[in-house]
């Protein structure tokens, strides 16, 4: 169980702000920190891991003080499995070497072999990371994080660099492993579909604070906007069309055009991540 109550001054793109978060995560839970880039999600994750230090507050994990009262438990002794956004595999070691390196002294020798088997890395185990595809590297990074037998799994936007198909496959994998090892997991994400698929609880972080908290369906679902379908998308272009504006969106791997008013247009610019809500009063379902 994680009990966290911290503050840290952060320098953002629009001036500095304070990361001020109080939260509690139960053992075995899968929680997502959701929000825009620069909201402080990754810093929060780094504070839990011990890669960054809060200015004040406390972090307790399973009754053990990790931070607070002038004491800081070094990152080496926190036993976290941290998966970086760009995986950060050790280039000088093979796939198996990466996993062996992660194994803690005295830990079960079979764990590495077990992970290689579970994650179907057998074929790749003697290859160097540079020769692997993005999806393969991601699997190795996940296996490495688990090889350290962590009491806490921290995932920093683990699927952001992958194509849609690989992404879905690996999300299933993460879910399966998280349940297999019953490991408390905190994931940072800005992808709604990802949050829906993986976590039971989502904390929406805005400007360093928890703005909303609840099950993904409550946060993104019908209750809030009266819509039934929710898609996460990115604004690609905005064009004027008579009195309204046509916004071109990238949703998943599809391009969609949506009409918005001049007023709504003011709040959007290309590159923005948006949520597309649609009422499902007339859906067409086609078997595929």
């Amino acid at each position: 169980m994680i009990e966290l109550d911290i503050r840290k001054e952060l320098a953002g793109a629009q001036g500095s702000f304070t990361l001020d978060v109080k939260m509690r995560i139960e053992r075995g839970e899968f929680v997502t920190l959701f929000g825009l880039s620069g909201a402080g999600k990754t810093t929060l994750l780094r504070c839990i891991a011990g890669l960054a230090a809060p200015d004040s507050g406390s972090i307790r994990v399973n009754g053990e003080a990790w931070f607070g009262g002038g004491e800081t438990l070094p990152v080496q002794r926190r036993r976290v499995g941290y998966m970086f956004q760009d995986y950060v595999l050790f280039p000088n070691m093979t796939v198996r070497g990466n996993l062996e390196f992660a194994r803690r002294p005295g830990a079960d020798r079979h764990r590495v072999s077990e992970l290689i088997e579970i994650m179907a890395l057998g074929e790749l185990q003697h290859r160097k990371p540079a020769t692997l595809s993005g999806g393969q590297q991601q699997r190795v990074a996940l296996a490495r994080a688990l090889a350290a037998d962590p009491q806490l799994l921290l995932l920093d936007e683990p699927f952001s660099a992958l194509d849609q198909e690989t992404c879905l496959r690996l999300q299933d994998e993460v879910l399966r492993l998280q349940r297999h090892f019953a490991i408390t997991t905190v994931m940072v994400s800005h992808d709604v579909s990802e949050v829906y698929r993986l976590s039971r609880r989502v904390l929406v972080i805005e400007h360093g604070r928890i703005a909303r908290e609840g099950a993904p369906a409550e946060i993104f679902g019908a209750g809030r906007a009266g819509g039934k379908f929710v898609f996460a998308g990115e604004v690609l272009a905005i064009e004027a069309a008579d009195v309204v504006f046509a916004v071109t969106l990238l949703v998943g791997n599809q391009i969609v055009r949506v009409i918005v008013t001049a007023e709504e247009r003011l709040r959007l610019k290309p590159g923005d991540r948006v949520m597309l809500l649609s009422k499902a009063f007339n859906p067409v379902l086609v078997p595929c």
Partner: protein
Amino acid sequence: MHYDWQPLLLTFKLAAITTFILCLIGIPFAWWLSQTKVRIKPALEALVAMPLVLPPSVLGFYLLLAFSPAHWFGGAVEHMTGIKLAFSFSGLVVASVIFSFPFLVHPVQSGFQNLPQSLSEAASTLGKSRWQIFLHVLLPNIKPSLLAGIVLSFAHTIGEFGVVLMIGGNMPGETRVASIAIYDEVEALNYGTANFYALVLFGVCFAILLGVYLVNKKLAMRVG
């Protein structure tokens, strides 16, 4: 014309010992320098780089003064270890280590600096100590920089002349390295012998550098 291998052997012995000592001191120092945030870092970096721009005679002059048994440094070294630094092989080693320091530290330091910070972070989340990270993660990933640093400092020590002349003199078997011997032979109009030493140095240095470029090409291909 007589061929004496002694100056050449002495040169390579000096270069090998110097490079070995440089690795022991210079690699950890380069690592520290790449990480540190101390305020005197620019001053330290300037000091390390000094031998690149300073005339060897300047460095040689001060080392000569410092190595003298009358000076506190030379006196203390002689008193404590019995080693005489002025006009001796040991003195040459000390001077060469100082003089070739930037040639090892610079490439190795930039090698460490070019490694992503997240590499150390990833290893530390896996419970590894700073020393384990240095040995198993950082060092193996800067092999081309290490190779460049080691070879450059070795080759630079071979090519040393001014400092050796100032503090070593010209004692056969002790301080008469090949570069001094060439100068000496030319002065005595023994062009043939001078040519022999010069040609060997030329060939060896070329072979070493060629080796480095070939190995680096291979390393680059393996990564790419």
